[in-house]
């Protein structure tokens, strides 16, 4: 999968988080989290439910107060300078709704009245495919339409960076893909995106860099390709052999990380080295195979590998 990524500018980070800590009732949920979001990039925070992703971004939005650590949004403190921060930071919250009887058009007009230099909402609605829905009430929109409206409201103040928290959770695959291309458009328009997700595929496709977060800690931070390369399982080999192969023989393969068997089919995760070893093993033992496949590991594999290791 290739996505053109725009080069990072040299204007410096638009969001800086360093040594962020947050606990609820003595239970630490964000533990020493540090990262930066550069101007114009899509930065992903990827992790399972309850990892502390929402808590982290809500500290950036000024909705929660960190126990310790330093956060800057365009050089501003989200708690002390909350009003100034609202002009540079656009927000889509994980859980929020609008009044059920407010129409799309009214919501766009209302929110644009809040800002000093709002975008013209008409072309924005057009680009987000909301033009046909302008007179529809919020309560009557589909999940995907609501999320598109929330993207529009996050962008309407012409922010330098938007935070999108679990934007595509609960959407059907089609709507999810449509939303992805909208996020790419946002990035191409020069707005940095801080994307919170628990979908590997989403992070892999959209993000320039990803922080893997697990139990409140960042376990890895790199480009998607870097993360996959870093994990011990960069290659997946699967085949159905013409005759059974002993588990010990497989286990002895170099670079091997995991073996999975499903009926007669064998799936091995390992490295380039493993691939060569499997091929010579099969040739020497005169075993034929059915549907021999070698694929690159996905971020999914890397994620499991990196979080299990930590």
């Amino acid at each position, binding site marked *: 999968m290739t996505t053109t990524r725009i080069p990072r500018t040299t204007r410096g980070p638009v969001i800086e988080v360093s040594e962020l800590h947050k606990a609820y009732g003595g239970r630490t949920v964000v533990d020493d989290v540090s990262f930066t979001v550069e101007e114009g990039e899509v930065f992903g925070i990827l992790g399972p439910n309850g990892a502390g992703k929402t808590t982290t971004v809500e500290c950036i939005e000024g909705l929660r107060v960190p126990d310790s650590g330093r956060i800057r949004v365009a050089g501003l403190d989200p708690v002390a300078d909350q009003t100034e921060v609202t002009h540079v930071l656009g927000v889509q*919250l994980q859980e929020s709704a609008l009044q059920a009887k*407010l129409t799309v058009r009214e919501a766009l*007009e209302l929110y644009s009245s809040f800002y*000093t230099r709002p975008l013209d909402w008409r072309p924005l609605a057009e680009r987000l495919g909301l033009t046909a829905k302008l007179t529809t009430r919020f309560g009557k929109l589909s999940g995907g339409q609501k999320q598109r409206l929330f993207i529009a409201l996050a962008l309407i*103040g012409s922010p330098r960076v938007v935070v999108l928290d679990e934007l595509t959770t609960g959407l059907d695959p089609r709507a999810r893909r449509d939303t992805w291309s909208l996020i790419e458009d946002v990035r191409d328009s020069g707005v940095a995106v801080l994307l919170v997700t628990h979908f590997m595929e989403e992070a892999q496709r959209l993000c320039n860099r990803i922080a893997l977060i697990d139990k409140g800690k960042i376990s890895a931070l790199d480009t998607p390709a870097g993360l996959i390369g870093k994990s011990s399982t960069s290659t997946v080999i699967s085949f159905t052999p013409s005759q059974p192969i002993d588990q010990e023989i497989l286990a002895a393969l170099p670079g091997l990380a995991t073996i999975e068997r499903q009926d007669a089919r064998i799936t091995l995760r390992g490295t380039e080295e493993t691939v060569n070893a499997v091929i010579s093993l099969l040739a020497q033992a005169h075993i034929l195979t059915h549907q021999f496949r070698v694929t690159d590991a996905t971020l999914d594999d890397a994620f499991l590998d990196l979080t299990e290791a930590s």
Partner: protein
Amino acid sequence: MTDQVTTIAPPAPAGGPSARSAVLRSEIRLYGRDISNVLLSIVFPPLLLVILGLVPSFREVNPDLDGLRVIDLYVPVVVLISLITAALLIFPPILTSYRELGILRRMSTTPVRPSTLLFTQMWLNGVMALVSAALCLFVGWLAFDVALPRQVFGYVLALLLAGAASLAIGALVAAVAKAARHATGIGVAVYFPALFCTGLWIPVRSMPEALGDVVEFTPFGAAANALGQAAAGDWPDWRFLVVLAAWAVVTSAAAIRWFRWE
């Protein structure tokens, strides 16, 4: 994104008067879209007066009431019902649902403070209550020949203080209710004792002395007496106005203390 999307609208001061009036316009529209709000706040109190006025004996001069008719006593009662219906039945669930739905939270990530929404709702419900109260006075005068308040300033002052106390109680209900349906439940639970205190079942002046003494310390009992006096042309007793002001101040402070934005 195409460059047309980056078209910037003419600058306007953020979070300023234009944002506040946009919030007000939007809330008025939403209020009007909920027909039950309109029926309850504007139609119900005058309608109740009309129904009471249809009882023939209520339109006859009653020697026990210093030459007044029962319907004369009911006008201040329905005026107060206008206030408490808006403040206790309509206002709290709206506010709580705005918190429950995350609307207040979403707003705090914009240049406009979420308190704008709270105060807009307070004004809106206060104005609707006063419109309904005026309608009750008008219907009473037109249909049943009930004299308009003779001590106008005293009447308006008592009405405004009663409105402030009612809305403060409504805000307190919204503050302590965890969900909109709890706000409805608590609102109704406060509404019926409040109705009793206005004198809907027994006029405050005809209540047994011990009961009447207690009721006069509730905002609705105090308001009923103050409005009754002003309607008859006297300046309302300071005692009643002080009770109303004290309720308004204390419950506002409690609502501010306990209100949660999320």
